[in-house]
C-alpha cells in the first residue's frame, strides 16, 4: 500500500497544497466555526446585539413540532427520490444491457438530463403541471383529477419528487449500465446453460454483483436528495403548501433568509452538519469495502 517512493523536497509540497488549504480555511473552516458560534447566540437581524444563550436555540428547535415534522418530510422525500431513482434507472439499465441494437443511442438519449440544473428541471415540470395552463394539468382534468399543487400537499410532494428523480435517473443509469456491462459473460452463459431465464439470471447474478454500485449510488442519491434538491423545491413549490415540502435544508434557508433568525438557522445548520458527518462516514466505509471487492 504505502510502500511507494517519494520526493523529499522541503518547500514545494507546502506550496502545492497552499491554495487548497487557504481556500479551505477561509471559506470552509472559519464559517463552520462561525455557524457553531452563532448557534449559541440570539441576535437581532442586523447583528447589532448578540447574547450568548448556550443550547437554548437547540432546545427550541427540538421542541418545535414543525422542525421535527420537517425531519419527517425530509425522510419521506429522500426515500421517495432515492428508491424511485434507483429502481427506475436499474430497470432502464437492465433493458439497455439486454438490448444489443441501439444501446449506444439509448445511452446518449438517457444520460443528458445530467447536464440539466435541478432548478431548471423543476421549472420544466412546473410548467407542465401549472395549475392554470399546464399541459398535464389539462390532461388530468379530462380524467376528473384536479391538479393544484399550490393547495394539495401530496401533489406538491409528487411534483418535487418527479423533478428530482427525472434529473437523477440519468446519473444512476450510467453507473448501473456500466456495472452490468462489466459482468463477465462467462458467468451469464453458465447460468443460461443451467436453464436460468433472463429474469432469474438478473436477480441471481447481476443484482448481487451490482451491490457495490448500488450502495455507492444509494449514498450519492441520499446526499443528492438532502442537499442538491433545494433548487427543485425553491423553484417548484417554495416549501409549500403549508409545510408539505419544507425539507431540513429548506427550513434553514427560509429561517435565515426570510426569518432573519440567525440563531435558529445556525442551530439547524449544526444539526445538519452532524447528519452529513454520519452520511460521509457511511459513504466512506462502504467505498472502502467496495475497493476490497474488486
Amino acid at each position: 500500500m504505502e510502500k511507494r517512493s517519494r520526493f523529499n523536497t522541503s518547500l514545494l509540497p507546502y506550496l502545492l497544497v497552499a491554495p487548497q488549504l487557504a481556500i479551505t480555511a477561509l471559506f470552509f473552516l472559519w464559517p463552520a466555526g462561525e455557524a457553531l458560534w452563532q448557534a449559541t447566540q440570539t441576535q437581532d437581524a442586523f447583528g447589532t446585539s448578540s447574547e450568548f444563550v448556550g443550547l437554548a436555540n437547540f432546545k427550541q428547535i427540538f421542541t418545535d413540532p414543525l422542525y421535527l415534522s420537517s425531519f419527517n418530510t425530509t425522510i419521506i422525500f429522500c426515500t421517495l427520490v432515492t428508491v424511485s431513482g434507483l429502481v427506475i434507472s436499474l430497470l432502464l439499465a437492465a433493458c439497455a444491457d439486454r438490448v444489443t441494437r441501439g444501446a449506444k443511442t439509448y445511452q446518449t438519449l438517457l444520460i443528458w438530463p445530467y447536464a440539466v440544473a435541478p432548478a431548471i428541471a423543476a421549472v420544466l415540470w412546473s410548467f407542465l403541471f401549472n395549475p392554470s395552463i399546464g399541459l398535464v394539468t389539462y390532461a388530468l382534468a379530462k380524467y376528473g383529477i384536479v391538479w393544484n399543487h399550490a393547495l394539495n400537499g401530496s401533489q406538491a410532494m409528487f411534483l418535487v419528487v418527479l423533478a428530482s428523480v427525472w434529473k437523477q435517473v440519468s446519473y444512476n443509469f450510467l453507473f448501473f449500465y456500466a456495472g452490468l456491462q462489466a459482468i463477465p459473460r462467462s458467468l451469464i452463459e453458465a447460468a443460461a446453460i443451467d436453464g436460468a431465464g433472463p429474469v432469474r439470471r438478473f436477480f441471481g447474478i447481476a443484482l448481487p454483483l451490482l451491490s457495490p454500485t448500488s450502495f455507492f449510488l444509494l449514498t450519492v442519491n441520499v446526499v443528492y436528495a438532502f442537499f442538491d434538491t433545494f433548487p427543485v423545491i425553491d423553484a417548484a413549490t417554495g416549501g409549500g403548501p403549508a409545510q408539505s415540502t419544507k425539507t431540513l435544508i429548506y427550513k434553514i434557508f427560509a429561517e435565515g433568509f426570510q426569518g432573519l433568525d440567525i440563531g435558529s438557522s445556525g442551530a439547524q445548520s449544526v444539526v445538519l452538519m452532524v447528519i452529513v458527518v454520519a452520511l460521509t462516514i457511511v459513504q466512506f466505509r462502504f467505498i472502502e469495502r467496495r475497493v476490497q471487492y474488486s
Partner: protein
Amino acid sequence: MSSRKLLVSSISLAAALAFGASQAQAATEIQFWHAMESALGERVNDIANDFNKSQSDYKIVPVFKGSYDQTLAAGIAAYRSGNAPAILQVYEVGTATMIQAKKAVIPVSDVFKQAGVPLDEKAFVPTISSYYSDSKTGHLISMPFNSSTPVLYYNKDAFKKAGIDPTHPPKTWGELEADSKKLKAAGMCGYSSGWQSWIQLENYSAWHGAAFASKNNGFDGTDAVLEFNKPLQVAHIQFLQNMAKDGTFTYVGRKDEAVSKFYSGDCGIVTNSSGSLANIKKYAKFSFGTGMMPYDESVKGAPQNAIIGGASLWVLSGKDAATYKGVAKFLAYLTSPAVAAKWHQDTGYLPVTTAAYELTQKQGFYDKNPGADTAIKQMLNKPPLPFTKGLRLGNMPQIRTIVDEELEQVWAQKKTPKEALDSAASRGDDLLRRFEKAGS
C-alpha cells in the same frame, strides 16, 4: 519671487484649482436599494434621474435587489460587512425588525433635523404615517413611499351575465356571498382573494374596529400577544369556510394568484392590493369596477379604516453628514406634491401626502380613472383608533406564513376556524417572544 518659485506656485495653484474643481464636480453618491421590479423599477429610476439632474451635489443610485425578502437580506449582509446602502426599502412587515436594530437605523425625522432640511410630518396622510412613526413621540422613523390597501375588484360583464346590477359592487359580506352564488350559478368562480392574512385578518380587524394584537397591535411594546382568534375574526373565517364548502369562494394561493384568476375572467369578484389596478387594466378584456372592502353591518362602528401594505424607506447608519444631507434632500423631493402625485398616478400606490391627493384631484385624475381613489378613501374613512394604525409585530413575515398555513387547512376543510386561528395565534406568540428576547 524667483521664476522658479513662480513656476512652482503657479503649478500648485493650477493643481489646487483643478483638484478643487474636480472635487466640486464629484457628487456624493447615495445608494438606494429597492425591490421595485420591472415597470415600477423604471419609475424609480426616472424619479432618481430627475432628482440628480435638478442639482449637482448628490447622485442617487437606485439598485434593484429582488424581492422584499432579498432586498432586506442584502441590506443586512451589507450592513454587517460595513458597506450598507444609505437608503433601504423594507416591506411594512419588516418595520418591527428595523426598529429593533436601533444602532443600524437612523430615524428619518432625525436625518432631516441633523441635515437642516424642514420636514412637515403633518403633511402625510395620518393612517399612512402612523404606521411608520414612533408611538410615543409621533415622529417619523421611516419614510412612507409605496403603500397600498386591499380593494375589491369586480367583473362588470360577468355581473351582467349573472343577473347582478353591474354598477353596484357588493358593500357587505352578505351581499358578496349573494353575488358569488349568482356568479357560480352562471358557471363562473365566484369570489377569490389574495394575501389572505393581510386582507382577511389584519385589515378585517382594523376595518371592523378590532385589534389584531395587544399593546395596540404591538406599537406599545414587544410584549404584545396576538388577538386575531377572537369570536369576531373566527366568525368571519367561518363565513369564508362555508363559502369555500359551497364552492363560492376559491382559494388559489398565498400571494397575488387571485389577480390572474380575475383578469382571465374566471372569478367574478376578487379582493387584492390596490396596486393590482395597473395589471388588471392591462390584462382584463372586460369591463371591471372597484369597490371598498366589504364589511359586516352587524359590527358596530364598521367600517373603520384600512391599514396599509407595501414598504417604506429606511436610512441606515454609518455614513457621513454629507450623505445624510443628500438623503434628506432626496426624501424631501420624493414627498413633494408633484413627485408624490405622479408616483401615485403611475403606480396605483396611495398618495402619501394629503397635498399629493389634493393635487391629483385637482388634475382631474380620478374623473378620468374611476376607482383609483377607492384606496385613499378607505384610508381616510374615519380617524384611526389606537389599534387600527397599523401593525408593529416582530417576525411578522413568518407570522403571516403561519396564518397562511393554518388558513389553508381551513379551506381544505381539515380544521375548524377556531382551531386554526388558535393554533396560529399560539405559534405566532412563540415567534413574538423569540423576537422580544432577541432585542433585549
